[in-house]
């Protein structure tokens, strides 16, 4: 009975909290001070047409570095736990996928990888960026595992790519302190012509590093979960 009462009380409190948000909702007609500054001066200051990227990579670059670190740590934890739990057992060989799936994946795999690279290389121009591109690359790996369950990734190459990308990201961030306005400032490279692929300073370079890192990490996590990893 007391438990029921607590549940009802919690629901009433929650309703009370959200009533204020929902009841007195007024649509904003102008941006607040900080977003307004980003929108007004972001394109001139950082040279990136996609403002989301400018905020994510440069204005809030430290948060992005934190996100990359969190993903890195969880990938390590997954690798460690699944290896400790005897993840290398290959009791029965997995079933082969149908021929339709195998043939389709054969054609789709390079295209999906290319789409992932496009998304992170154009992160400063079009929607998307390092995380999205990396996730698309990992989806390509997932397709590969679905069609050929026995396939394995080259772990040496993956770890080398991942470590070098993480290292390069931090190196560019530190270069920002020395050459430009601060840690992770994108103006260590010239801003270039607005709207071109090679523009917006270090943003495309940073997003390429993030894309490679996220893509390799998520692929490695997928392979750990799939089992029979080396």
């Amino acid at each position, binding site marked *: 009975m007391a438990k029921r009462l607590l549940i009802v009380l919690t629901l009433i409190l929650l309703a009370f909290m959200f009533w204020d948000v929902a009841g007195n909702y007024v649509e904003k007609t102008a941006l607040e001070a900080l977003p307004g500054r980003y929108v007004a001066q972001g394109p001139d200051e950082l040279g990136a047409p996609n403002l989301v*990227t400018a905020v994510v990579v440069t204005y809030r670059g430290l948060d992005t570095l934190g996100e990359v670190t969190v993903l890195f740590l969880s990938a390590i934890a997954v690798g460690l736990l699944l290896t400790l739990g005897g993840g290398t057992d290959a009791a029965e060989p997995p079933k082969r996928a149908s021929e339709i799936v195998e043939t389709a994946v054969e054609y789709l795999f390079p295209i999906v990888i290319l789409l992932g690279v496009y998304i992170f290389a154009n992160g400063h121009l079009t*929607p*998307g960026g390092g995380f999205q591109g990396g996730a698309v690359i*990992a*989806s390509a790996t*997932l397709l590969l595992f679905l069609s050929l369950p026995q396939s394995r990734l080259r772990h040496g190459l993956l770890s080398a790519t991942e470590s070098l990308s993480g290292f390069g990201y931090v190196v560019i961030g530190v270069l920002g302190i020395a050459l430009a306005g601060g840690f992770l400032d994108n103006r260590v490279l010239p801003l270039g012509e607005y709207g071109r692929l090679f523009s917006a300073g270090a943003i495309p370079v940073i997003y390429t590093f993030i894309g490679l890192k996220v893509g390799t990490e998520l692929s490695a*996590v*997928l392979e750990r979960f799939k089992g029979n990893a080396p």
Partner: protein
Amino acid sequence: MDPMAWLTLLVCVAILVGALAAVSLDNIVSAVIAAGLTSLFASVSYVILSAPDVAMTEASIGSGLSTAIFLYAINRTRRQEHDPDE
């Protein structure tokens, strides 16, 4: 209402139905698929709200990779679940 509002309403109802199905379905694999569908409809709603960056992340990670990881994990735990009883 204009067509866009109807589309938004449809997507919101689909999110709710998917989420309820994910909670209430007994078959755990179906529940995971329902959760993936919920993410997919959520990503559509992000596109409608003109947030394509978030929609991309939600579509690839929320409905693609995490569903696959859940399915792999279910596949691996079930095998061990049966062993001690026998």
